């Protein structure tokens, strides 16, 4: 279906498919349906409100409207567009900010001013802008579905591959010479294997609720490096993996997502503000263009697509925003890119489902959520993965979804169902957040199921000791819990120094390593090398300190070491580009420990 219209511009078909029977918020019942198709894009009333047909039954239907329905009345006409709600895919998406149904907010702003008015029609991709197209196939060649027919250098660092739509294959009849074209101009003509000629432009459409096809799934054994120490060192996610970040309000979901969006080593970021604050989007919009991607030296905005359907924007467009985002991500994955998609917050999406379901008077399951909630969550996370693309490249989509449990209680349905379908869990802890221990990711509750599969990568690319150091630290953190229980009953004095030293080392590790200040110029992200070295220094302090204490050194002495203060501040003092500061700290630590050893032996 997408291919059939892939070269048509969106021409609103003035076909009336029925008229309004009942209006209840964003849900509209339609009567007198003649010929409508499921998930068809529709327009409602003389206000021309955008909607989608989500239920068909005999001669009636249900439409969910993506704009405020004030003023819509029974007997208002409903027009069908003859196509499904689809994303427009092609050059021009990078650096753009869209609403939940892919309308560019900048263009809407130019048209209607500071408030978003209803019924505005703006194409998702700029129709005037010309792109420099370089063909890479010759007439006469066979073009497989989803294969590359040319390229456009969209930004300094991003080569946009122009693909044949996933449903079109055939023999190339003609291809446009290198030159400037708009997204709707024909750049190639194909005689399809199934018969008939088809013109292709640089833009294609894809129905947002359908996963784009690939050749096969690949194993998830390469990490997505985020620059956030607690994540990369303790609970890393694989490229193509799925993560949930649950946490009550103010625990750091948005900050964590933004930090990952800024510093992770993906080629492209799709950031979805789904039912959250307007100012957070503004924050991204003002900050990202100024920030420099350390890998490319270019502005972070040049690798970011933003989707903003804030909490006060229509709830049904919020429901769609998630699918709009993932469809764009898949499209770039199909070009062999690694894409990370950040959805803040998937709970607001689930609530949108609940609201729409309630208005349709469907039977609720838990807490008013519809019974199909788990299916929808599963379908969404299933669209993540590292894939061999139709064109034979490798690309990935990593999904990182925030979850906002009511009352911060993880036993609620959205958190619970999400947990079934993700493999990496970064649990935010209220107590840590209250203590301003950021990121407030709990080292006890979080997990990563990708760990084992990725260990070879870490050992090879980072440090052979990495895995061992990590295991050592995790063991200490778990021992600490038991020791703290003792302390809470009888006080710290009851513990021998060897055990109190474990508490000391854990405190050090939390302060010096796990806590990471997103606002500090040096600390905001750490390269994998810096992380591994930092972790190793702390493990050294632990191992040698433990020996020293066994030989009679005191805790106070261990704490008063000059190296101790160095370690606490190393995250702020040693920049990523020059780790020689860590050499010095390590050397000083070894020296002091040597001296202490000499003293006590």
């Amino acid at each position: 279906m997408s291919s059939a219209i892939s070269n048509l511009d969106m021409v609103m078909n003035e076909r009336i498919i029925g008229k309004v029977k009942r209006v209840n918020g964003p849900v509209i019942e339609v009567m007198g349906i003649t010929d409508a198709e499921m998930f068809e894009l529709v327009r409602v009333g003389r206000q021309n409100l955008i909607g989608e047909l989500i239920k068909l039954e005999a001669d009636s239907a249900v439409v969910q409207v993506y704009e405020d329905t004030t003023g819509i009345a029974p007997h208002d006409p409903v027009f069908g567009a003859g196509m499904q709600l689809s994303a427009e895919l092609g050059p021009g998406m990078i650096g753009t900010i869209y609403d939940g149904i892919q309308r560019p907010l900048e263009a809407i702003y130019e048209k209607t001013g500071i408030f978003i008015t209803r019924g505005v029609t703006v194409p998702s991709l700029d129709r005037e802008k010309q792109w420099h197209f370089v063909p890479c196939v010759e007439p006469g060649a066979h073009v497989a579905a989803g294969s590359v027919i040319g390229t456009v250098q969209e930004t300094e660092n991003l080569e946009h591959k122009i693909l044949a739509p996933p449903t079109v294959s055939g023999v190339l009849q003609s291809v446009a010479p290198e030159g400037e074209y708009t997204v709707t101009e024909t750049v190639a003509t194909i005689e399809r294997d199934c018969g008939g000629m088809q013109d292709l432009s640089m833009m294609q459409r894809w129905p947002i609720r359908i996963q784009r096809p690939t050749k096969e799934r690949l194993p998830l054994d390469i990490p997505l490096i985020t620059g956030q120490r607690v994540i990369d060192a303790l609970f890393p996610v694989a490229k193509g993996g799925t993560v949930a970040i649950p946490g009550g309000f103010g625990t750091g979901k948005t900050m964590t997502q933004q930090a990952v969006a800024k510093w992770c080593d993906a080629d492209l970021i799709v950031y979805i503000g789904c039912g959250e604050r307007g100012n957070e989007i503004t924050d991204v919009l003002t900050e990202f263009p100024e920030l420099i991607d350390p890998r490319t030296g270019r502005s972070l905005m040049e690798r970011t697509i933003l989707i903003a359907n804030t909490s006060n924007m229509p709830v049904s467009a919020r429901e769609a925003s998630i699918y709009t985002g993932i469809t764009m991500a898949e499209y770039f994955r199909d070009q062999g890119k690694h894409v990370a998609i950040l959805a803040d917050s998937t709970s607001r999406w689930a609530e949108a489902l609940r609201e729409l379901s309630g208005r349709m008077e469907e039977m609720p399951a838990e807490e008013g959520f519809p019974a199909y909630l788990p299916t929808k969550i599963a379908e969404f996370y299933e669209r993540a993965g590292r894939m061999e693309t139709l064109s034979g490249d490798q690309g990935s989509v990593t999904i990182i979804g925030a979850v906002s449990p009511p009352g911060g209680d993880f036993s609620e349905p959205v958190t619970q169902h999400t947990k079934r379908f993700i493999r990496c869990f970064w649990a935010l802890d209220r107590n840590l957040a209250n203590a301003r221990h950021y990121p407030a990711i709990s080292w006890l509750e979080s997990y990563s199921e990708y760990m084992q599969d990725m260990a070879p990568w870490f050992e090879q690319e980072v440090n052979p000791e990495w895995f061992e150091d990590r295991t050592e630290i995790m063991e200490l953190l778990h021992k600490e819990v038991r020791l703290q229980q003792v302390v809470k009953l009888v006080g710290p004095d009851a513990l021998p120094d060897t055990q109190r030293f474990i508490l000391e080392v854990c405190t050090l590790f939390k302060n010096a390593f796990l806590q990471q200040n997103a606002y500090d110029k040096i600390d905001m992200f750490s390269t994998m090398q810096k992380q591994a070295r930092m972790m190793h220094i702390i493990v050294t302090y632990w191992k040698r300190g433990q020996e020293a204490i066994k030989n009679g050194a005191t805790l106070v002495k261990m704490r008063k070491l000059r190296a101790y203060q160095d370690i606490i501040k190393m995250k702020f003092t040693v920049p990523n580009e020059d780790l020689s500061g860590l050499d010095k700290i390590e050397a000083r630590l070894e020296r002091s420990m040597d001296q202490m050893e000499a003293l006590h032996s």
Partner: protein
Amino acid sequence: MESAKENRHLLAGREYVGVDRIDGPLIFVKNTHPVGYRELIECVDKDGQMRLGIVLESSTDAVVVQVFEGTAGLTLPDTRMRFCGEPLNLPVSKEMLGRVFNGLGQPIDGGPPQRGDLALDINGMAINPIARQYPRDFIQTGISVIDGMNTLIRGQKLPIFSGNGLPHNELAAQIARQAKIRGTQTEFAVVFAAMGVKHDVARFFIRSFEESGVLDNVALFLSLADDPSIERLITPRTALTLAEHLAFNEDMHVLVVMTDMTNYCESLREISTIRGEIPSRKGYPGYLYSDLAELYERSGMIKGKAGSITSLPILTMPNDDISHPIPDLSGYITEGQIVFEREMDGRGIYPPVAGLPSLSRLMKDGIGEGMTREDHPHLASQLFAAYSYVKDVRNLASVIGEEELTPLDHDYLEFGKHFEQKFVSQRQDEERSIEETLDIGWDVLRSLPVEELHRITEEEIEKYYGG
């Protein structure tokens, strides 16, 4: 089809005598012309009294109308309904400052009917995120625990999460009196919306505005405890509509105080229950989040506009429970929260602001060098960290006894005492400059040994701690 549209236009304003069903604040009318969703209605009772309402649902079978002033005294045969063909619009103008209105925006101060420069849909429209200006200007409230640790920023929405009987009105009034942007003189206004609060609360605020001589810059929208509960659903919307006009058409800096949001949410639950909607938690409708967001998100700053809306919603947490849906959903929308703690109030600390759960999300971009003072970010972070440790030590002490604590833990207890008594605690008429606030912060930190100050740089320690 065309004729239906045409007719509808002509039929707007048409009156129907007699309604089919009345259920709580809802009226059901059958056999009307096609009526638009959210259309305004005028409902006239048998004595000729007019009440306003809006259409909650419209279908070919019946129209469901919600009447703001309640349905008491209405009868099925004699009630007359007029559908106005447009949503509820509020005439707005700068002249509304200094006046008192009911929740629907009708004057109740005995003055002349208001004359609007414009009539605006009270539901407002979503601000395009592109159009927003990220708020950064520090507002000095003169209250240490706010300025120092939960800084208020112009254009922020920062609620007070309080409990019954706690001094939230006093704090809100103190903020309204003392709030200033240092070094500037700009036109400002206060828009005050009261939902279901008692007369004396309204009187307290009016007196407070009067005493500080700002009453002429205040517009009050009062829907008090004895007014129909449904009116409360409209009150914040009318208030915010005026606020938007003042901020974005008249270039004023507007502070919106809304109290008590809990009463607002309760009215929403009432309507939802009567309509038989599927509830989510504690009987509140699933759309409570979106509904609150439509109110809270109307604050902010806009590119190219000189004015701003800063909002200070007040809500009382049922049972002092911060995980109750009302504070919980609010916290998910607002840009932080000032949380009150009954235990601190009991110890005579004013304002009883809980150190740890309180948060200002916009603080980061409004403090530090050139805005407040260079040492502010690290000092605040250190105070939070230390105070959080104090809480742990207090817990420990309550189990094992204070004697068993280490000397360092004793230092922390000492710090905690000073922090609460010298830093947090202040008089209701006490206005501290940000420098005073930060200096007191350093002063209380001196209870701790310097090695404990992990979040502060060497230079800051030298400059502020040592001296």
